[in-house]
């Protein structure tokens, strides 16, 4: 009999979203256990640099900002792929979340009254901060926004917010079991009651049983190989959901490529570089972005800037290097003081990893896989489709405030906002649920995992797991990147269908007892291959261009056929994935032009009201559980008109 640990709430993942949700439950007196692959402060949230968007409007360049303008930017940024009500819940709560984090202890940068010099659209400009706002949380500029709205602590925002959040976890005495990896959810048909977990300390397999289970494991960027993501971001959490066969992963084809990954190493330098006045230059050291995007220039949304960079390189304007083609990020004019204070992490990264001094030299950058807009589909309460008692939040989820492109500063903010909002629903769920400590059910699930491990360790002959990983990432990198074509996506899909079969024959060479790193990786490879296929096949199916999903053969955004969200399930592990589609959600802002990016749209043929009338029913048919409040209740009708 394996060890069984019981708790009210089981949170898988100890980044910002998971910890904030855990705090919400612990504050209600519930018993919470957080599982994490790594010590919580090592979570990838700590690597976020630039900041969090919230419409506090304290900086003079954010004057007049409000939650409606933030919401508008977010919906346009999403290329109308977002659930507008969820975007509204987010924008409305973001200022509260920032203030709460200040109360918890985050040392947000503050407004200093009086004049200061900044760079706006390549020009040195003096702005005068309001003395009346002195000492309130300030903000910097980020892409795709009408106002300066991104709250920050230098360029270590994720670090300070995560440390502060983890301090709260310690203060509340919340149990954290680190170096633990959830392998599979334990569920009774469509009710989740816990997870099978493997210890990365000694390899023990045990069961956790809970009233409410929460997945907050972040993104899957490492499936792409070349990614800004931490090495632990291998899609382990979304794989848990996919394995149930009933919980869909949504919009997996919506993948963000960040304009400024450094070359080589793919480490991110923050959008704050461009927000603070950094410029993109080509091989001739010519500033090309104003030619493509006269209005937003370097600060269009990430999908647009990445596309323009790629487009410019395809015109032969890239810089050739032994590590492939790249462009330049010019930060020199910002000066030593700025680079050694507000962009200090960026300065360190450039100096240590590529030996480039950004005070004097240009920084080599290229668009790099960065963020997954898609993920585990949940309703507005964070409750997963088709699975009672299972919640997901943060990057691993598709809540869905980002649609087909998320704005910089919106995902880090999402972690704490969803942690607050969804966290409350998680606590409510746990309070009204009885613990089902069905030990024999747990044992069945545990045995299946033990058999899988035995199979991996004992197979006489088979594939090398690391080589398979490279084959998977090569297909995604080559064919499912910034620009996509039907032909390339066919190749990727066929190749990945084959790889999904081949990962069944992995042979683990190391028989070492304990955590056995090769075995640990082999246990993840099926999930990586299957999710890669969902990304490629989802992209192949979607015959339009929307946000970060850009098809050469279907360049227009098609609101007639594709104003919807992809839902992919995998009912039979040996079979094929199933793709379905649902409406994006209730529309308030009618689909239109984003004001940047230059794409064409095929306009809806039905009215917004007609579209909205079928949302609730169609989503329900796809397994959406009823939210606590009716659909659309948090979306004030046409409030945006007041801002026009």
């Amino acid at each position: 009999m394996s060890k069984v640990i019981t708790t009210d709430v089981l949170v898988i993942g100890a980044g910002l979203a998971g910890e904030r949700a855990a705090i919400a439950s612990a504050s209600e007196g519930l018993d919470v256990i957080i599982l994490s692959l790594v010590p919580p402060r090592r979570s990838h949230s700590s690597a976020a640099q630039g900041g969090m968007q919230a419409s506090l409007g304290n900086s003079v360049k954010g004057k007049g900002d409000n939650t409606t303008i933030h919401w508008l930017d977010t919906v346009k940024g999403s290329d109308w792929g977002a659930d507008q009500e969820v975007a509204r819940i987010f924008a409305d709560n973001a200022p509260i979340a920032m203030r709460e984090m200040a109360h918890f202890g985050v040392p947000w940068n503050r407004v200093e009254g009086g004049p200061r010099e900044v760079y706006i659209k390549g020009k040195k400009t003096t702005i005068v901060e309001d003395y009346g706002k002195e000492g309130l949380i300030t903000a910097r500029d980020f892409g795709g926004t009408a106002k300066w709205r991104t709250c920050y602590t230098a360029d270590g925002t994720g670090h300070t917010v995560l440390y502060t959040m983890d301090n709260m976890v310690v203060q509340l005495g919340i149990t954290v079991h680190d170096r633990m990896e959830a392998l599979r959810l334990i569920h009774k048909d469509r009710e989740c009651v816990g997870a099978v977990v493997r210890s990365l300390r000694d390899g023990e397999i045990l069961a956790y049983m809970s009233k409410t289970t929460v997945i907050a494991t972040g993104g899957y960027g490492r499936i792409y190989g070349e990614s800004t993501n931490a090495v632990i971001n291998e899609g382990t959490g979304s794989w848990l959901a996919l394995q149930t066969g009933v919980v869909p992963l949504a919009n997996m084809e919506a993948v963000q490529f960040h304009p400024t990954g450094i070359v080589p190493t793919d480490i991110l330098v923050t959008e704050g570089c461009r927000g603070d006045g950094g410029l993109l230059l080509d091989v001739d050291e010519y500033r090309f972005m104003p030619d493509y995007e006269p209005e937003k220039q370097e600060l269009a949304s990430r999908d647009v800037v990445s596309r323009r960079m790629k487009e410019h390189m395809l015109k032969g304007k890239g810089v050739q290097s032994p590590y492939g083609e790249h462009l330049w990020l010019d930060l020199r004019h910002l000066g030593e003081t700025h680079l050694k204070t507000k962009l200090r992490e960026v300065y360190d990264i450039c100096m240590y990893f590529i030996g480039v001094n950004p005070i004097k030299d240009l920084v080599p950058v290229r668009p790099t896989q960065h963020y997954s807009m898609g993920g585990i589909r949940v309703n507005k309460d964070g409750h997963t489709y088709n699975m009672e008692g299972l919640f997901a939040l943060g990057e691993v989820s598709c809540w869905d405030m980002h649609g087909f492109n998320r704005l910089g500063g919106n995902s880090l903010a999402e972690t704490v906002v969803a942690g607050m909002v969804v966290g409350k629903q998680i606590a409510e769920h746990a309070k009204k649920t009885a613990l089902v400590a069905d030990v024999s059910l747990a044992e069945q699930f545990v045995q299946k995992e033990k058999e899988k491990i035995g199979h991996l360790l004992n197979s006489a002959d088979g594939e090398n797991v690391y080589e398979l990983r490279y084959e998977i990432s090569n297909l995604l990198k080559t064919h499912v990147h910034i620009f996509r074509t039907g032909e390339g996506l066919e190749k990727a899909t066929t190749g990945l269908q084959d790889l999904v079969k081949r990962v069944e024959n992995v042979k683990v060479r190391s028989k070492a007892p304990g955590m056995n790193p090769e075995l640990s990786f082999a246990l993840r490879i099926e999930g990586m291959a299957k999710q890669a296929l969902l990304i490629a096949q989802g992209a192949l199916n979607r015959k339009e261009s929307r946000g970060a999903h850009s098809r050469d053969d279907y360049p227009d955004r098609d609101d007639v056929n594709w104003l919807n969200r992809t839902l992919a399930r995998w009912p039979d592990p040996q079979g094929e994935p199933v793709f379905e589609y649902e409406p994006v959600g209730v529309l308030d802002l009618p689909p239109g032009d984003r004001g940047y990016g230059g794409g064409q749209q095929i306009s809806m043929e039905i009215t917004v009201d007609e579209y909205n009338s079928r949302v609730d029913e169609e989503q329900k048919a796809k397994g959406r559980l009823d939210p606590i409040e009716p659909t659309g209740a948090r979306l004030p009708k046409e409030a945006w008109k007041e801002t026009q």
Partner: protein
Amino acid sequence: MGRALTFEIFRYNSTAENDKPRIDIFQLEETPRLNVFTALNLIREQQAPDLMFDFVCRAGICGSCGMMINGRPTLACRTLTSDLPNTITLYPLPFFKLLGDLSVDTGVWFREVAERVESWIHTQTEFDPQTEEERMDNATANKIYEAERCIECGCCLAGCATAQVVPDFLGAAGLNRIGRFVIDPRDQRDEEDWFKLISTDSGIFGCIGMMACDDVCPKDLPLLEVFAYIRRKMAAIGFSKKKEKAAAV
């Protein structure tokens, strides 16, 4: 052809019966801008699939990959092999519990320290979602950020003479953590609270001032200044206590 590098790596699997600590030797050809992160992954993928080590962000931000590289505690991810001789020796950080090979348990130690120093804002003020945030001047925010930059990699403890002999010594990371709250106006702990917490042999007066922590800190935290500040503050509180006592007599 790049240089032929020799990696001498400490090995020990505590979960394997009869395993004995040893050094394994691996050869690897150096490629341009090779760092210890990439090197260790190549060795694991091609030569030693059971080799244990920890990386997360691989960008010098998360603090996972502290290890002894040619005798010096540092972050492996941002150590370039080109800065090292042909032979590179890798040991796990001392002081922390060894989990296996190069992997040590920093997480549990830092959680315990966070509990000991009560690493959170002590305040009676309740959060009110409807009111404006409490104001803070930006210079103070920057000072707190400077202290908050510690990534808890553990290099300071691995390099610390006191930590090797005084088991409950807070070390530079622990003391810096306290320093971060001392300068935070939101924290309502008073001088008496700080004095009790820091003025002990496991606190600031355990430090014998060799300052290896300051030498090895990968984030260049101003540990010298932090210690000087805390010492002065504690001395001042100590003297005022003495005066009070004398006055009472």
